[in-house]
């Protein structure tokens, strides 16, 4: 009897859930260790090892680059500075522009065609022009990153301003709110989540553009380091640079995500 019941066990239906916490973490660890093992294994093949360094070689590069005479931390700090300056300026400028576009139809109709047009151009395509205009110092890097992050953020935040729930606006009006009250009390907090989403997208765009901006006309920075190491066929340093950029992007995104969670508990 008992056995019979076991035989007619309910069919497991696909529910697209992630599974239990333990299950998820176990698989995550398996995935990471497995990935490293696979990496170590394929780099044992000599033809592959010529262009792909092994984990051990990358670790060696990390040690030598981090030493007193190495340049690892200088590259990181220079790259970070470029990202943060370009992104920071873009963040400060995109918010007022997005709000002006969302609030005033005149501004919106004048500015939007340009934003939409420029958005389709990869910012990297501007590099030659910016270098011609600004030379080889830091400003052209800031500018490229600024343009990339600014366009993404303006579009995202502006969408948020435009999509503020119209019922909330009507409600505020019925309380007797003036247009100014409406802007500061309703529109700004309501579009707040979009500002944070825009910041994350802008940060991702900044990092993507950073490496391209550093491939030309500079000796320091992670992008320049990768480019330089490639000329000496030093694939361990190339890979170290790539992994470092990945980690920086991951950490910055997690920080912004944390800020988002902290600031929009109401969502």
């Amino acid at each position, binding site marked *: 009897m008992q056995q019979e019941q076991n035989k007619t066990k309910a069919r497991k239906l696909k529910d697209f859930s992630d599974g239990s916490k333990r299950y998820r973490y176990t698989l995550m660890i398996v995935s990471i260790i497995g990935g490293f093992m696979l990496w170590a294994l394929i780099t044992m093949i000599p033809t592959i090892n010529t262009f792909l360094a092994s984990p051990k070689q990358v670790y060696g590069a990390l040690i030598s680059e981090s030493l007193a005479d190495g340049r690892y931390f200088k590259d990181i700090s220079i790259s970070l500075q470029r990202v943060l300056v370009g992104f920071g300026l873009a963040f400060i400028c995109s918010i007022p522009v997005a709000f002006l576009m969302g609030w005033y139809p005149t501004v919106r109709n004048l500015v939007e065609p340009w934003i939409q047009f420029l958005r389709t151009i990869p910012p990297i395509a501007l590099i030659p022009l910016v270098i011609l205009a600004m030379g080889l110092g830091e400003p052209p890097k800031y500018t490229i990153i600024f343009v990339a992050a600014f366009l993404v953020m303006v579009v995202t935040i502006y969408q948020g301003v435009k999509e503020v729930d119209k019922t*909330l606006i009507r409600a505020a*009006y*019925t*309380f007797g*709110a003036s247009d100014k009250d409406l802007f500061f*009390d309703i529109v700004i907090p309501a579009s707040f989540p979009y500002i944070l989403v825009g910041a994350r997208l802008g940060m991702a765009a900044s990092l993507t553009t950073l490496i391209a901006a550093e491939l030309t006309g500079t000796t320091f920075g992670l992008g320049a380091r990768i480019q330089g190491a490639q000329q000496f066929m030093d694939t361990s340093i190339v890979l170290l640079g790539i992994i470092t950029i990945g980690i920086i992007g991951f950490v910055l995104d997690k920080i912004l995500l944390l800020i988002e969670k902290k600031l929009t508990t109401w969502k």
Partner: protein
Amino acid sequence: MAKALISIKDVHKEFKVEKGANVNALNGVSLDIEKNEFICVVGPSGCGKTTLLNIIAGLETYDSGAVTMHGETIVGPAPERGVIFQQYALFPWMTVRKNIEYGLKFIRKTEEVESTDASGKKVKTTKQRPYTKEEKHQLADHYIKMVNLTGFENSYPKALSGGMKQRVAIARGYALNPEVLLMDEPFGALDAQTRAQLQEDLLKTWEKEKKTVFFITHDVDEAVLLASRVVIMSARPGQIKEIVNIDLPYPRTQATKMEDSFIRYKNYVWDTVYKMYLEIPK
């Protein structure tokens, strides 16, 4: 003729449609709303009942006619005309308390001040001043208690059920002490039990706080239970078809729905609405 609180005279409103014929939302609507009345408007969708409410609220304009309150033309929204929306319209970034307190920022408290004038006589003058923080807090407490949400003061709307959200919206509406409450299908999205309870609560509050209520619904039961007058509107063009006085004594409860007189009113209103619905070309 006694002066009505709100007077709507021959209001016309057309919605421009880019392709096809314009929609005649309101075609010569006239209605007087008396002080302390509970008016329910029923009618098929497209009869312009929401448009009418928005016009009274000052949220929409009209093509011709006149809409006045205390004899003065309504030119825009104002706190004397509170609106309760079907979609609750709570500010999601504010707690229950903050949602209720927010509107108080725009209204002034009238106070009597005693002072001595030049000739040494004592005179009483009224002065208007903003609500203090404590007063806002107390008012919020009072209305949170009224809608049975004590304990949820610091919750965000996302944590509340539909019924609780609408209670907050009602508390918010009352806290501003409007002269008339305009309610646009406020219970439309709620389940039957929650709806029944909120209807009773609303009736109790209305009897206690005696406000004029203009309430839109598509539920004939609800209209007859709540209203002292039911306004039946017809669609395309939107017009007032008939106004039915509901002579059932207050206080009314859900039990009122069992009474023969209630059922007679309900059947009558229902028949009228349904016949109109059948006549609409589909």
